[in-house]
């Protein structure tokens, strides 16, 4: 899993949230996991989109996005999640999200988009069991 790049002295004025950590893994056969860390906003949405595309390109029948370490989710990030959920549905897979924190749960709650996903409080429950 990659390390976040922190801004150095030569990057004054650039926020650390410009960098988003994403990693795809296969915790068990048939399960693809996208782990995201950082803040998902206008600046980092393209990175998140690319990672979601990569997740959906896997042949797995269990798709999980772990948002445990996502500190902020903008509407652009929520739009990526919604689009990913629809694409997963096209192959009869429900997208699972690990959403233990308010920063991610609240945007989903307040927009009423919860029913699009299988929401889980931790990674173990999201990756365990079968659909």
């Amino acid at each position, binding site marked *: 899993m990659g390390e976040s790049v922190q801004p150095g002295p030569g990057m004054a004025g650039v926020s650390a949230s410009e960098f988003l950590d994403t990693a795809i893994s296969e915790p068990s056969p048939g399960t693809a996991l996208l782990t995201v860390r950082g803040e998902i*906003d*206008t600046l980092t949405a393209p990175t998140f989109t690319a990672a979601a595309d990569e997740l959906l390109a896997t042949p797995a029948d269990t798709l999980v996005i772990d948002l445990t370490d996502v500190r902020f989710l903008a509407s652009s990030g929520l739009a990526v999640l919604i689009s990913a959920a629809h694409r997963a549905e096209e192959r009869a897979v429900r997208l699972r999200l690990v959403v233990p924190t*308010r920063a991610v749960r609240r945007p989903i709650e*307040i*927009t009423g988009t919860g029913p699009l996903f299988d929401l889980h409080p931790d990674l173990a429950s999201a990756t365990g069991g079968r659909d």
Partner: protein
Amino acid sequence: MSDLSSPTPADALDGASTVEVRTSASAALIPTIRAVASDLAARADFDLDAISDLRMAVDEACATLVDVASPTSWLHCTFLVRPERIEVHAQVQTKHADAVVSTDTFGWRVLQTLADEVAVHHDPGRGDTSPTVEIRLDKRSGDVLR
């Protein structure tokens, strides 16, 4: 150079605390403005959901404005902190008077859901003043009736 449409501290005669933040109109600086919004809401005893909503609403407003801002524009945010609500005015200059904010987007609908009130105002500018766009939003501190 004052923004004629922005409230000055003297306008907030109802005792609101005023905080102004001015940055380059760049997406890289929006996280800083989000941090200010969160901080003010937390200190004003907003409930946790309201803090999250305000932070996301401010982010949405700023991102929307940065998208139409001219390259040399400032992003100017004014926070009016009142006992049970925070009012936010965010403004940028645009290159042309016809640079408009679309209210027909997913992001705008999310903003309307997050904030208790939200409005956009386009000012075409006059003479040598640039056209500007301003988004104003209001967020109450919580659901509890007091």
